[in-house]
C-alpha cells in the first residue's frame, strides 16, 4: 500500500478547529524559524516538471576555456517552449559584490517565453548583462545574475581537471558554485508582467518562473565547470559524479530588499501561510499507522544529520542549529516510545510546543507535511491570489474600530512614544534604491521613511477614529475619510485584511529589538531555501535546489514521482578512500565544526 492511501481529508470544520491561532503563527520570531517544506516553491516546481514531463535540452553552448560565452537551454512543457539564456563573462575581483549596488556579475541570465532568434539574442546580449541599467525585452519572464563562489569554483575545477571527484565537504561548507544576488520577475526593467503568466499553467504559481531560472543556472554551473575542466585537461578530466551533482545547489544572497515585499503583499502572504497551516491542520488529524511513524523517524534522522552538516559562522544561527540537532534525538525517542494513538501527530505537535525551540517545532511541522503528499500537495495550487486592497466605504466607522480592536489588537499593544518602540526607520538609498534601516534621530532620511511598519499606522488611525466617533457616532468610513483622507491607505488595508488571519506579520517593525533576519527567512523558507547562513542581522546566504533531481533525471521521465520528489534536507554524499562517491545514508553523525 502506498503511504498516502491511508490518508483522508478532514472536513472544513475540523480543519478550521485545528488551525493554529494567528497570534502564534504570525509572530515575527516564529516566522523567522520556518523551514522549507514540500509546499515551498522549489519543491512545487520540481514536482510539476516531473508530473508534466518537462524536457530541458541545450541548444547552444559557446564557452571558451575560461567558461566565458553564451549558453542557451530549451525548456519544452506540454503547453509551450521557453529558453534560458545565460551570458558568462570575465569579472574583475574588485567588482564582485552580492549587493544590489553591484554593476557587473560573473553570469547574467534570463528566461524567455518562446524562441530566441538572432535579433532577440542581440538585444539580450546588449541588455541582460547590464541588469537594472539595461532595457529588457517584454518576452523575458525572469532576469537574474549570479557570482561565483571562488573557493568552490577553484576547488572543483582543480579536482575535476585532475581526474578526481571534488571533496563533497566543499558543498557542505558552501552548497553551490554560483550565488544569485537578485532574481527579478513581474515587469522589472521592462520584462513581462506577472499578469501575462496568470493564465499560463506552466508558471502561474508565485515565483515559479524565477525558480525555474535558478534551476537552469544550477544545470549550467555543472556543465560549465565540466567544460572548463575538459578544456584544462582534455585527456584527464572527469565529469562530476551524480551524487555530487545532486548535492550541488545554487546560492542566494539576500538583504533587506526582501522586506518590503512581505509587507506590501499581505494577501499573498496570507495565502502562503494559510496554505501551510491548513495542510498542517489536515495532517495533524490523520491517524498514523506504523509505516508513517517509521517514515517520520527516518525523516527526523535525515533532518538531524542535515542540520549537523549545516555550517555557519553566525554564532546565533549556529546555536539555533545546534539546539535543534541536539533536540532531535529526543524527538526520535519520543516517536518510538509513545503508543501509536489516533491523535499521535497532534500529541507530537503539542509536546514539541511545550518542550522544543521555535525552530525545532517548525521543523517537526515541515516533516509532518512530508508524510501525506496527497493531502498536502493540492495546497500548492492555493498559493497565488489576485491581489487588490479595496475600501468598503459604507462600513459603519464603529464597525471598523471593532475590526481593528479584534483583528489588529497586536498593533495596539505597543507604546510608540517609547524611543525603543520607534527606534528604526526603513528607507531607500539613492544607491540603486537599496532598502536600508536607519536609526531615527541619529541618521538622515526619517522624513522619507518607507511606511513598512504597519503597527504604528494602525494605532495612529485607531486613535483618530476614536476621537471622530465621539462627535459622529453614526459616521460611515467614507465620511471619516473625507475629513481625514491621509488614513485611506491603511484603512483600505485593514478592511481588506481583517478577515484573513495570516496576512499581517504581527510585529512592530520600528522596534529596536526587531530582527530583520526573521523577515528574510520567512520569505526564503517559502522559496525553499536551506542552509541559512546569516552574514549579519540583515544579510543572509542560503542554498536552493541542493539535493534536487538533475536535468538528466528529469529528462528520463521518472516513473516514481514520490521518490523523485523526496529530496528535502539533503546530506553530504559519502566518499571512500579512492574518492568514489556514494549516495548518503541518513544516519545521524557528528560533523566537524558542529557539536551536538
Amino acid at each position: 500500500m502506498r503511504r498516502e492511501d491511508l490518508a483522508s481529508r478532514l472536513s472544513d470544520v475540523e480543519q478550521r478547529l485545528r488551525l493554529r491561532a494567528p497570534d502564534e503563527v504570525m509572530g515575527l520570531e516564529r516566522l523567522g524559524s520556518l523551514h522549507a517544506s514540500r509546499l515551498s516553491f522549489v519543491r512545487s516546481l520540481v514536482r510539476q516538471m516531473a508530473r508534466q514531463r518537462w524536457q530541458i535540452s541545450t541548444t547552444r553552448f559557446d564557452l571558451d576555456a575560461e567558461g566565458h560565452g553564451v549558453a542557451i537551454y530549451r525548456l519544452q512543457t506540454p503547453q509551450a517552449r521557453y529558453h534560458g539564456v545565460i551570458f558568462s563573462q570575465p569579472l574583475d575581483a574588485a567588482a564582485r559584490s552580492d549587493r544590489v549596488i553591484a554593476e557587473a556579475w560573473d553570469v547574467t541570465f534570463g528566461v524567455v517565453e518562446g524562441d530566441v532568434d538572432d535579433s532577440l539574442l542581440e538585444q539580450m546580449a546588449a541588455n541582460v548583462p547590464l541588469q537594472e541599467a539595461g532595457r529588457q525585452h517584454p518576452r523575458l519572464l525572469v532576469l537574474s545574475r549570479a557570482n561565483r563562489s571562488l573557493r568552490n569554483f577553484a576547488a572543483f575545477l582543480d579536482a575535476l581537471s585532475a581526474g578526481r571527484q571534488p571533496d563533497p565537504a566543499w558543498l557542505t561548507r558552501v552548497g553551490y558554485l554560483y550565488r544569485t544576488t537578485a532574481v527579478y520577475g513581474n515587469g522589472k526593467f521592462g520584462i513581462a508582467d506577472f499578469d501575462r503568466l496568470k493564465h499560463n499553467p506552466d508558471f502561474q504559481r508565485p515565483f515559479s518562473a524565477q525558480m525555474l531560472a535558478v534551476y537552469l543556472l544550477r544545470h549550467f554551473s555543472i556543465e560549465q565547470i565540466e567544460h572548463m575542466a575538459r578544456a584544462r585537461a582534455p585527456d584527464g578530466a572527469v565529469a562530476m559524479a551524480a551524487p555530487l551533482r545532486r548535492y550541488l545547489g545554487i546560492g542566494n544572497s539576500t538583504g533587506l530588499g526582501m522586506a518590503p515585499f512581505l509587507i506590501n503583499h499581505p494577501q499573498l502572504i496570507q495565502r502562503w501561510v494559510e496554505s501551510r497551516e491548513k495542510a498542517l491542520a489536515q495532517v495533524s488529524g490523520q491517524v498514523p499507522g506504523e509505516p508513517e511513524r517509521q517514515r517520520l523517524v527516518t525523516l527526523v534522522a535525515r533532518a538531524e544529520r542535515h542540520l549537523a552538516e549545516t555550517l555557519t559562522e553566525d554564532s546565533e544561527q549556529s546555536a539555533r542549529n545546534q539546539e535543534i540537532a541536539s533536540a532531535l534525538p529526543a524527538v526520535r525517542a519520543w516517536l518510538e516510545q509513545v503508543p501509536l494513538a489516533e491523535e499521535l501527530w497532534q500529541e507530537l505537535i503539542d509536546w514539541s510546543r511545550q518542550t522544543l525551540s521555535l525552530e525545532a517545532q517548525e521543523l517537526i511541522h515541515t516533516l509532518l507535511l512530508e508524510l501525506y503528499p496527497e493531502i498536502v500537495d493540492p495546497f500548492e495550487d492555493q498559493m497565488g491570489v489576485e491581489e487588490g486592497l479595496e475600501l468598503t466605504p459604507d462600513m459603519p466607522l464603529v464597525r471598523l474600530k471593532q475590526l481593528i480592536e479584534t483583528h489588529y489588537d497586536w498593533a495596539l499593544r505597543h507604546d510608540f512614544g517609547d524611543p525603543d518602540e520607534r527606534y528604526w526607520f526603513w528607507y531607500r538609498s539613492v544607491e540603486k534604491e537599496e532598502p536600508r534601516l536607519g536609526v531615527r534621530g541619529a541618521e538622515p532620511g526619517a522624513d522619507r521613511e518607507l511606511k513598512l511598519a504597519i503597527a504604528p499606522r494602525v494605532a495612529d488611525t485607531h486613535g483618530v477614529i476614536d476621537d471622530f466617533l465621539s462627535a459622529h457616532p453614526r459616521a460611515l468610513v467614507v465620511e471619516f475619510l473625507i475629513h481625514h483622507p491621509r488614513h485611506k491607505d491603511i484603512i483600505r488595508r485593514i478592511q481588506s485584511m481583517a478577515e484573513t488571519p495570516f496576512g499581517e506579520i504581527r510585529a512592530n517593525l520600528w522596534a529596536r529589538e526587531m530582527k530583520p533576519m526573521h523577515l528574510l527567512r520567512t520569505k526564503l523558507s517559502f522559496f525553499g531555501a536551506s542552509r541559512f547562513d546569516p552574514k549579519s542581522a540583515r544579510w543572509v546566504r542560503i542554498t536552493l535546489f541542493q539535493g534536487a533531481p538533475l536535468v538528466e533525471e528529469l529528462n528520463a521521465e521518472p516513473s516514481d514521482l514520490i521518490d523523485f520528489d523526496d529530496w528535502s534536507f539533503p546530506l553530504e554524499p559519502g566518499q571512500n578512500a579512492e574518492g568514489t562517491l556514494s549516495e548518503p545514508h541518513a544516519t545521524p553523525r557528528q560533523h566537524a565544526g558542529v557539536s551536538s
Partner: protein
Amino acid sequence: MKVSYNELQGLCRKAFCAMGFEDGDASDAADMVAWMQLYELSGLAALGRGLDFLLEDQGEQPAELIYSDGDLAVLDSHGASVLKSSTLALELGFAKARARGLAVIKIRHCHNRQLIMGYLARLAGRGMNVTAFWRNAQAPDTAAQAPAGEQATDTPLIEQVVGFRAGSPVPEIRVYAVHEVPEENEPNDGVTLIMANHVDLLPSLRSEYQLDLLARHQESDLLACRERAMRDGIEVDDALWARLKHLATRLLVESGDASRSGAGAGTLDTD
C-alpha cells in the same frame, strides 16, 4: 521606449509620493494613470499635461463636501487634479448607491478629468455600474479613433461620456462635439457621475442636435489594447519617463558609510 505595466505603476507611485501625495492617494493616482496607458487612452500624456500643475499645487485642502443627502452629493475639489481629490468623492457615491440603488455625485472644479476613468474601473470591478459625464473635455489626442468621415472640423463644445458595466474591466467611451451650443454655456470644469447598483448605464448617442463623434472606444477594442500591452510592453515618452524618474529620486536618502552598512552586508564578496 517600452515599459511594463508594473514598472509604470511603480514609477508613477513613487513620483506621486515624491510630489507630496499621501500613500493612498499616490497608489490610486498611479493606478489611474497606468490604467489609462494600458488601454492606450493616453494616460501619460494627460499626466504630462497636468504635471506642472500638480507640482505647483501644494494646497492641502481636501475635496470639500458642499451638499449631501441620501443619494446625492456635491463636492468641490477647489481646482485640484482628480488624481489627488476624486477618489473619496467616488467612494462616497459608491456608498450611497449601495444604500439607495442609485446615486449622483457632482465634483466641481477639478483638473485632469480624463484620468478619473481608472478609478471608475475599480468601482466597476467591485460590482457598480458607473457613468461619468463632463463637458469642455479635452479633444482626443488622435483622430484615429473616430470613424472615417465623421471627424469634426470645428469643435466648439466637446462632451465626453464614459460608462462601465458592473464587473467589466473596460468602459464604453464616447467623445463628441456639439455644434449647436446651448445658450447657457458657462465653462464647466466639473464631472457628474451616476452610479447604479443594478442597472447598467452605458452611453448610447441619441440626440436631436447635430453631433460629431470624435472618439469611440468599445469594450472589445480596449481589451485588445490590454492584450497588446501585456505582449509588447507599453510605449512611453522618454522625456516624461525621465522626468518621473527624476521626481521619484526625491524619496531616496543620500548614502554614506553608515547608511551603506545599514544594508547589513559588505561591499565585496570574493569568497
